[in-house]
Every structure is written in structure tokens, then in C-alpha cells.
């Protein structure tokens, strides 16, 4: 503590309430404070950054493209995390806690529940999970999963409303629980069997089966980086004000409810919409003109339907759209070369990528012949920094301000109270806003592209055959220069030397069918060989699992919401449960969960089979575990999938899913939520067992006496 006597030498006190400190001393204090906080965040993100770089350099054998931009982005992630966490600790959490403590003083339970409902609804609209869910469902087709497609693309407002209502009800129920000091366990034992039973029911229906991943992922991603600490702090406040003995480490359990109710909401919405949604069908039947009227129920117009055919369908589907009229079909293909036709191709793909991934052999030949220069359409350029800043600031503003204002209005106007240090709260809100902007900018320009560069080409490590990566037209091509080589068996084969930019010439096999003698053009196909050779796919799959584990483990350690939760746990338990212990247990769980999620994509395991075992195991473990750890563990399941983990996981899931033509990328996040609960419950049991062990021994010795 600073002593009054020190003031006379170093500081000058002008009145009793304010001590003025020389600028140099103040600068040194701020410098040391900022340095400490930044170092802490460097430590938290170091693992995931080094891990991704090492995987890219040493396993995939490539280097980060646009390294300067990625490095700047990573710097922003560190700065953003520092500011955001400090903003949470100084501003948002004290504000939430203060409202929580004062609310029971002025309001009855009805108003508290209504306030919780409003806060939950507001938080979902402020931090929309729909963007994440849309990315995970970007490969969903309207004919393969009509209900899922309808929820994501035709009725996203209904989907968001069901999630928002779920979170709202959850926060309301959470407040009710804290007010009366009820245990979290009855809620878990009621909700989880209900959700699992409903999942089994959905799994039996062809259409509902496809929305299971969406529902469980919605539960995982709905609790954002601002919502979690705010709701947690509010719950802690109400819990403390209620003065119930059961709430020794009160405040936990609300995030679990905010994850479970949205799952219920989405499943109920799915069940309600199912009777009026078509069944999954073949692609050609869906695009056929005779089905057009029903197909158009999912699309605003025919042009949107055709766009879907080009973006997600195959040649058969596109031909079926025109009812076998080849002239109209070819006219549509020609339109792709025009600027208005470019919209038919997914924005995330270049024309060349579309040719390789979506177009058939005949379409490729047609477009190369009829639309010259189509394949060389430029790739989408990186967004300018100013534009990224503008967009991310707008979303940060939406995420932070409405909730903060709601709490501030309730506190100042309704409860007639104020935070302990108003200036500190204002600074905290400002820091949270700035931190979130920098963090999301950094994720978008640094961490996500880095994850994308590793996640998307990941299938190379388990693929057993070479994969086409692109095509190059060699013109003019001289067939006279093609050489002949011989195999050990004496069989001849023809090859020529090809020199890529900046590399040494290498022999490539000559395919006579790719040479057009009339135009003198040779179409050279660029191929990526399998990383571990054709015989080593098992090793490759093991490598993918290892990557998934490391990705989950590393990214979770940097999650700000988890850091805030860990800090709260350590504070409430007076250090008997360390923040690092909780964070490690959760990270381990997310790593394991991602491995299971990857297994689902690789082996196409129905999601219900992956959800049932961990949750059925969790129920007895919850029964045996102590009240405080049950709440902490189930809350950890909700906080794991935040702003840092989600983009990385989606890049990996979509990379592998795209390679294996899996309908959607859902389910991975749900797994990343289930397993941390398991690991934290086990960690809690271990900690408590260790804490009791010594005391138990003494009791036994006493008994012997």
C-alpha cells in the first residue's frame, strides 16, 4: 500500500480525495501495467500461433502467404485480447455484478426474470451466432437437407428468434434459480435427457436428422465473448444477494442453461417446420421443372435457384434445371463469363477453383473453349484495412454497447445506484470496445487466414491419391520436345520438362488427350501428391487427429471468455481451484472434442451417436460431483467456442468436409462443447479427492485409535 509518508516526497496531495502523481511516475506505472498484461496475452496465444506455423512449415511444407499481413493480424489479436480482457474486468463484469446485487433489493422475482429474459434476447441479437452457423452450413444443399437449408437460408430470422428466445429463457430461469438458491443439478437432469431424447427422435427422421448438428452447434456458439462474462457476473451478483448457503461458489450454471435452451429452441423449431418442408431427394429431381413450384418455396426466385445449382450442384442438376434444353444450359454457362454471371459462383471461390471443384469435365472444356479467360478471373483480393476496421468496429459496437446500456440504464435509472468507480467502468467499456474491434480485426486478417491456410489443405495429409490443384494452358506447345522414358519393365512413357516460376525444371507425364493439335495448346493439370504417399493414409489420419487436438487445445487457451471464467472461479474459491487448472482442463476437453468432431466428418458418423455417449456419461458424473464443480464444468462447455476457436475449427471442418463431400460442417463445435464438461468434471473430482485424501487419512487414523 502506498503510504501517506511517501506522498510528501514523491507525490503532491492537493486535497484529501485526489493525489497528483508526476507524469514520469505515472508513465512508469502505466508502462509496467501494460507490459504485464501484454506479456500475459502473448503467453496465451503463443501456443496456437507457433503450432499453426509449425504445422504449415513442417507438415504441409508451405509458407504463409501474405506473411506481413498475417503477422500484423496476430499482433492485433494480442493487443485486442489485452484490451478486451481488461475491459471485461474493469467495466463489464463489475457493472453486471452490481446490477445483480442490487436487483433483488428493488425488484421482485418476476421483474428479475423479465430482466434476465430481455438481457438474453438482447445478447443474442448483439452477438449474432447466425454468421458462424451460416459459415458452418455454407455447403448445405436444398435437396440433400431441405429443412436445414430452410432454417439457414429461407428462415434465418426464425432461427435467430428461436436461439434468442432460448438464451432469454435460460437467463430468466438462471435468475430464478439464483434468487431461490436452487441447485443446478435438477436442471441438468431434466434438460439433458429431454435434449438427448429429442435428438434421438430427430435422428429417426430423414429431414430432422440433418438439423441436429445445427441445433447442438447453436447451443455451443450462442454464448459470445461479451455475453458470457456479463451474464456470469450478473448471476454471481444475484446469487450473492440471495444469501443462500447453497451458493458457496454461486453464479455458475447459467451459461449451461444458455447453451441448452437454444438447442431445445432450434429442435422445436425444426419439428414445427418439418411437416411443411419437402423431404430430401435426388438433385436432378429437385431442379427438374415439374418440381419447380415446390423448390421455389425455399428460394425467392428462379435466378436464386439457378445460383444454388451453380454454387452447390453438379452438371446433372444444372442440366435438370433447364429440363434438358442444352441451348439454354449453354447460354447460362456463357453468362458466367460476364460480370453479372460472376454472382453465380460462390464469392469465396475464384473462377479457376470453381472449374476444378464444381464443374464437370465437359463444362470445363466448354468454358475453356467458349469463354476464354474465364479461368484466369482474378481471385478475391484481401479487404483493405480501413474497411476491415469499419466493419469490425460496427460489430463490436453492436456487441458491447446495447448490453452495457441496458445494464447502465437499469442501474442508474431504475435501481438508483451507481458502480463503485464510474470512471473505471467507462474506461472498461471503452477498452472492451477497442479490444473487441482489434481482436476481431486480428482474427480476420491474421489468425483466421493462418488457420485457413493450414485447415483447408489438411485433407492432403490423409489423401491417398493425387489431387488436382489447377490447370495451366501451355501455348504454343511443341510436341516434338516430348521425350520418351522407360520403366524398369521396359514399358515406354512420354514426358516433358516443365518449369514453374522460380523452380528447377521437373519432368511431367505427357497426356496426348490434353493436347489440341489444331490450336497447338496443351492443358497441363497441376497435381498435389499425397503427403504421406499412397500407403500411409492411416498415418495421415492420425496426423489430422493430432492437428485437431492441438488446434483445440491451443486456441481454447487464448479464449477471453474462458479466461474471465477461470479468473472468476479462482476468485470465488479463494485460489483452491486455480485458473490455469480450469483452462488446461477445458483446453484438453476441446482438443478431445475436436478429435471426435473430425472423426464424425472423416467416417460420416451420425451426430447422435457421438452426442449420446459423452452426455450419458456426464449425467452420472454430475450426480457424483459437487455442486460448485457441476456448475463450473457445465458452464465451461458453453464458453469454449468463442471468437478464436470458431474460425479455426470451421476452417478445419470445412476443409476436411469439402474434401469428403460431407453435407455440412456442423457437429464439430458441439463436440468441442461436450468434452470440456467431461474433463472439467473429472478435474474437479480429482482436485476434491486430493483435497480430501489427507483429511480422510487422519480420520481413519483417529478411528483406529
Amino acid at each position, binding site marked *: *500500500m*502506498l*503510504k*501517506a*509518508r*511517501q506522498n510528501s516526497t514523491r507525490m503532491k*496531495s492537493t486535497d*484529501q*480525495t*485526489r*493525489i497528483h*502523481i508526476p507524469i514520469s511516475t*505515472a508513465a512508469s*506505472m*502505466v508502462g*509496467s*501495467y501494460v507490459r504485464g498484461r501484454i506479456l500475459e496475452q502473448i503467453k496465451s496465444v503463443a501456443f496456437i500461433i507457433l503450432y499453426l506455423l509449425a504445422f504449415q512449415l513442417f507438415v504441409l511444407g508451405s509458407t504463409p502467404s501474405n506473411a506481413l499481413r498475417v503477422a500484423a493480424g496476430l499482433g492485433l489479436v494480442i493487443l485486442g485480447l489485452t484490451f478486451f480482457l481488461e475491459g471485461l474486468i*474493469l467495466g463489464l463484469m463489475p457493472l453486471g455484478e*452490481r446490477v445483480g*446485487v*442490487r436487483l*433483488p*433489493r428493488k425488484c421482485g422475482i418476476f421483474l428479475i426474470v423479465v430482466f434476465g429474459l430481455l438481457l438474453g434476447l438482447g445478447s443474442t441479437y448483439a452477438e449474432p451466432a447466425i454468421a458462424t452457423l451460416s459459415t458452418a452450413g455454407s455447403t448445405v444443399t436444398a435437396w440433400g437437407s431441405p429443412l436445414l437449408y430452410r432454417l439457414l437460408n429461407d428462415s434465418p430470422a426464425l432461427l435467430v428468434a428461436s436461439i434468442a428466445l432460448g438464451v432469454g429463457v435460460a437467463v430468466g430461469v438462471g435468475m430464478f434459480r439464483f434468487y431461490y438458491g436452487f441447485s443446478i443439478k435438477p436442471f441438468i437432469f431434466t434438460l439433458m435427457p429431454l435434449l438427448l431424447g429429442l435428438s434421438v427422435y430427430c435422428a429417426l427422421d430423414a429431414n430432422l436428422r440433418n438439423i441436429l448438428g445445427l441445433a447442438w452447434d447453436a447451443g455451443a456458439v450462442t454464448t459470445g465473448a461479451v455475453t458470457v462474462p456479463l451474464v456470469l457476473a450478473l448471476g454471481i*451478483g444475484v446469487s*450473492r*444477494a*440471495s*444469501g*443462500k*448457503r447453497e*451458493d*458457496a*461458489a454461486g453464479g455458475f450454471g447459467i451459461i449451461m442453461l444458455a447453451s441448452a435452451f437454444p438447442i431445445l429452441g432450434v429442435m422445436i423449431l425444426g419439428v414445427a417446420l418439418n411437416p411443411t418442408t419437402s423431404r430430401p431427394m435426388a438433385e436432378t429431381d429437385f431442379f427438374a421443372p415439374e418440381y419447380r413450384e415446390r423448390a421455389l418455396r425455399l428460394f425467392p426466385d428462379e435466378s436464386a435457384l439457378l445460383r444454388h445449382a451453380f454454387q452447390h450442384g453438379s452438371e446433372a442438376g444444372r442440366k435438370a434445371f433447364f429440363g434438358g434444353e442444352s441451348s439454354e444450359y449453354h447460354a447460362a454457362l456463357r453468362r458466367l463469363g460476364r460480370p453479372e454471371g460472376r454472382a453465380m459462383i460462390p464469392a469465396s471461390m475464384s473462377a479457376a477453383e470453381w472449374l476444378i471443384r464444381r464443374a464437370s469435365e465437359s463444362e470445363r472444356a466448354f468454358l475453356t473453349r467458349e469463354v476464354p479467360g474465364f479461368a484466369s478471373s482474378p481471385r478475391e483480393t484481401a479487404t483493405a484495412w480501413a474497411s476491415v476496421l469499419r466493419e469490425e468496429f460496427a460489430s463490436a459496437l453492436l456487441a458491447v454497447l446495447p448490453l452495457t446500456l441496458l445494464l447502465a440504464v437499469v442501474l442508474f435509472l431504475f435501481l438508483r*445506484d451507481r458502480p*463503485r*468507480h464510474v*470512471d*473505471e467502468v467507462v*474506461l472498461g467499456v471503452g477498452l472492451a470496445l477497442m479490444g473487441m474491434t482489434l481482436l476481431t480485426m486480428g482474427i480476420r486478417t491474421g489468425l483466421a487466414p493462418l488457420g485457413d491456410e493450414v485447415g483447408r489443405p489438411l485433407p492432403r495429409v490423409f489423401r491417398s491419391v493425387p489431387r488436382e490443384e489447377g490447370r495451366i494452358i501451355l501455348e504454343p506447345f511443341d510436341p516434338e520436345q516430348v521425350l520418351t522414358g522407360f520403366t524398369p519393365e521396359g514399358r515406354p512413357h512420354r514426358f516433358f520438362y516443365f518449369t514453374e516460376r522460380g523452380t528447377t525444371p521437373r519432368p511431367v507425364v505427357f497426356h496426348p488427350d490434353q493436347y489440341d493439335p489444331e490450336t497447338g495448346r496443351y492443358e497441363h493439370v497441376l497435381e498435389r501428391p499425397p503427403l504421406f504417399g499412397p500407403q500411409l493414409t492411416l498415418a495421415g489420419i492420425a496426423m489430422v487427429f493430432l492437428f485437431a487436438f492441438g488446434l483445440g487445445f491451443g486456441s481454447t487457451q487464448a479464449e477471453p471468455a474462458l479466461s474471465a471464467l477461470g479468473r472468476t472461479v479462482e*476468485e*470465488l*474459491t*479463494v*485460489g*483452491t481451484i486455480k485458473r490455469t487448472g480450469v483452462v488446461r482442463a477445458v483446453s484438453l476437453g476441446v482438443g478431445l472434442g475436436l478429435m471426435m468432431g473430425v472423426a464424425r466428418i472423416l467416417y460420416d458418423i451420425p451426430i447422435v451417436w457421438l452426442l449420446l455417449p459423452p452426455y450419458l456419461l456426464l449425467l452420472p458424473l454430475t450426480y457424483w460431483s459437487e455442486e460448485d464443480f457441476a456448475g463450473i464444468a457445465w458452464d465451461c462447455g458453453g464458453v469454449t467456442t468463442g471468437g478464436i476457436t470458431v474460425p479455426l475449427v470451421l476452417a478445419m471442418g470445412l476443409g476436411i468436409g469439402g474434401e469428403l463431400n460431407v453435407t455440412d460442417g456442423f457437429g464439430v463445435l458441439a463436440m468441442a462443447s461436450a468434452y470440456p464438461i467431461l474433463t472439467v468434471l473429472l478435474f474437479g473430482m480429482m482436485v476434491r479427492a486430493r*483435497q*480430501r*485424501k*489427507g*483429511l480422510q*487419512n*487422519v*480420520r481413519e*487414523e*483417529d478411528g483406529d485409535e
Partner: protein
Amino acid sequence: MSEPTLNFREVSRVTCMVHQPLGAKVTDCLVGMGAHTVLVENARAVRQHIRPRPWVFPGHSMEIHGTPVEVFRTTVPRESAEAVMRALIEVLDLERPGHGALYIQDLLEHSLLEPPVLRVQSEKEGLILRDLTLLTGILSQVGGGDALAKSALKLGACVPVITRGMGTGIRDQLGLLRITIPPEKEWVHLMLPAQDAVGIQRLLIEDARMDRAGGGFLYQTPVRAGVVDPLLRIGRQEHAASMEQVIAAMDELKCGTGWRKRYGDLEDPRNEKMRPFRRNHREITFICTEGRVDAFVRAAMRVGAGGATTARVRCLSESDFEGGIGARERGILCVPAGRADAVIEALYETEKQLEDTHCRIQVLDAPSVFSHQR
């Protein structure tokens, strides 16, 4: 409501620090007796944990091991205090090592509520130590409590119990620059034999490096009677009885802790080593509704208090729920006896000005106070 008047009553504060799973028993017991204000705080008890080294490595490792504890405080009429204590010892089986510790301190309390009339009957006979002192350390950094606790364990003093608090006062006068100084404090509670308290206090100051700027604050308050937890060490035991068990048996045989006296010469105030200690202070505790603590601290500082350490506590007994809110804050000021009256008056004036503070002011002697001085 009529205007309150400053009226001090002679009461006893019962503090019970128990292993967390036993917490429910304490609440039931105290509420069942009719105690109308039971304040609870989470804490950790620190012990030495000795275990074999992992794998094939020979020998044993010793580490500091924290177990969750709950600290219950209530005030009762002085005449009922020992009966309450005996009832709690019986209910909690406090004679067993590891269950916890309990002590009562006689103090003056100002409160709007009359002291409770307790329905307590206990014939429990057992060892109650009457020559104890409570040594309270306030450390400026989270984790700092462990250093002091480690030293206390090394000296074989007692099982330290650590709670968390916040520093208020000078820090709050720095404006926004205060965010650069962590407000968190660790509060270490040590129950020691009274005759050795000064000696152990001095050794702890040296060992835990509290004699440096920002090192913390360490003071004694008298204890009327108590039961200590002798389980200082968990793990491997090499003899028929542990040293703690031997000490507990000796305490019982000698009917007190007087036989443990080790630092006799330090008692003399003329001793050079005793110079940094300040005598004749008062520990002033105030308990109020959460959110009101700053007003009390500011008022106390205006009349000369150096600052306060506060902690959030929960009030469990529903009969004290006049405002329907159980969140309380407990603040502690340690001031020279000469300034105590002014501080108490300032606290009382603040109580009169504010609504629903549910304020209690408790005053206790603090005969030996140490903090770093330049």
C-alpha cells in the same frame, strides 16, 4: 424508523473456520440457536503436503496445499459465547484434526439489532485453549498469503486460513491511475499461543519479507478462547504419532499452550527488535450492505484512518434480511487508539446519512501492529 443512536454493547464474536463440507452444519446449528446474523466467507486452509516423488525418483516432496474452508462469523451475548462454542465443537467434531478451528473474541459492537437470545444447550467438555492470540496479516498481492502461510507452517505455528479482500483508501485517490495497482489483498489468519505471538510475528515479518515497502500489514488481536486445528501436515507419517498430535496431546495435558513458550526475551518493549511494532491500536470492523463500503472508508479517512481492507461476505440468516439482500461487505481499519473515537464517530455519522446500510461497527484492541515504515 427512529434515528439510531451510537450504543455499544459488550458482545462476543464467534468465528468458525471449517472444512467446506461441514459448512451446512454450522449454518443449521447457529440459525437453530437463534443467531440473527451469520456472515460467511470462502477461504482456503493451507497445509504442508508431503508425498513420494513421482515415478522412480527417490524421497518425498513437500508442497503447500490449499483446501476449501468456509469462515462463519456471528456475534452473541458474552455470557452465551462459550456455550455456543461448545455446541459447535460438538456438532462439528472439531477435536478431530482437519475439521477446522474456532475462536471467540470479546468486543464492543454497535448495531441496530439487539443481541440474539440464544437457545443453546451443550454439556460438551473438551479442550478449550484460553491463551491464544489471533495474528492477522494483510498482504498486498494475490499469492502473497502463501509466503506468509508457508513461513507459519515452517514455524509449526498453526494452520493458516487465507481469505481474499480488496484494498481501499490511498489507491482510490489516484484517479484512473489506480487501475495500475491491483486492489486484491490476501488476508491470513493465524491462531497462535499468546506468549509466543510477538516472537512468531517478528519471525514471520522477516521470513515472509514483510519488512519492505508494500510488504503488507500484520497485527494481533486478543482471543478469549479457541480450538485450533492441529493438522499442519498431510501425507506420509514416519512415527507412531505426528508432531501435531504430540503437541495437541501436550496442550491437553498442560491445559493450555503456555508450555510452548519460545521467544520470552522479545516481550520486553525496550528490546531493539520490538521497535517497528506499534502498540495500542484498535481494530475497527464495520459490516454494511454491499456497495456502501466506500462511503464508510472515505468518512474514516477524513478523520485520519490510513485506509481499509474490505471483503465481500454473505449474510445467511434470514432474520437479518430486512432489506431482502444478503450481500454484505466487511471492512477493517486498524487505527491508533487515540484516533479510534473519531473514526467510530465518522462511521456512525455515515450510517445515519445512508439508507439500508445494515451497519454494524465492532471495536477490538490491537496491541501489536506492524507495517513497513520508512
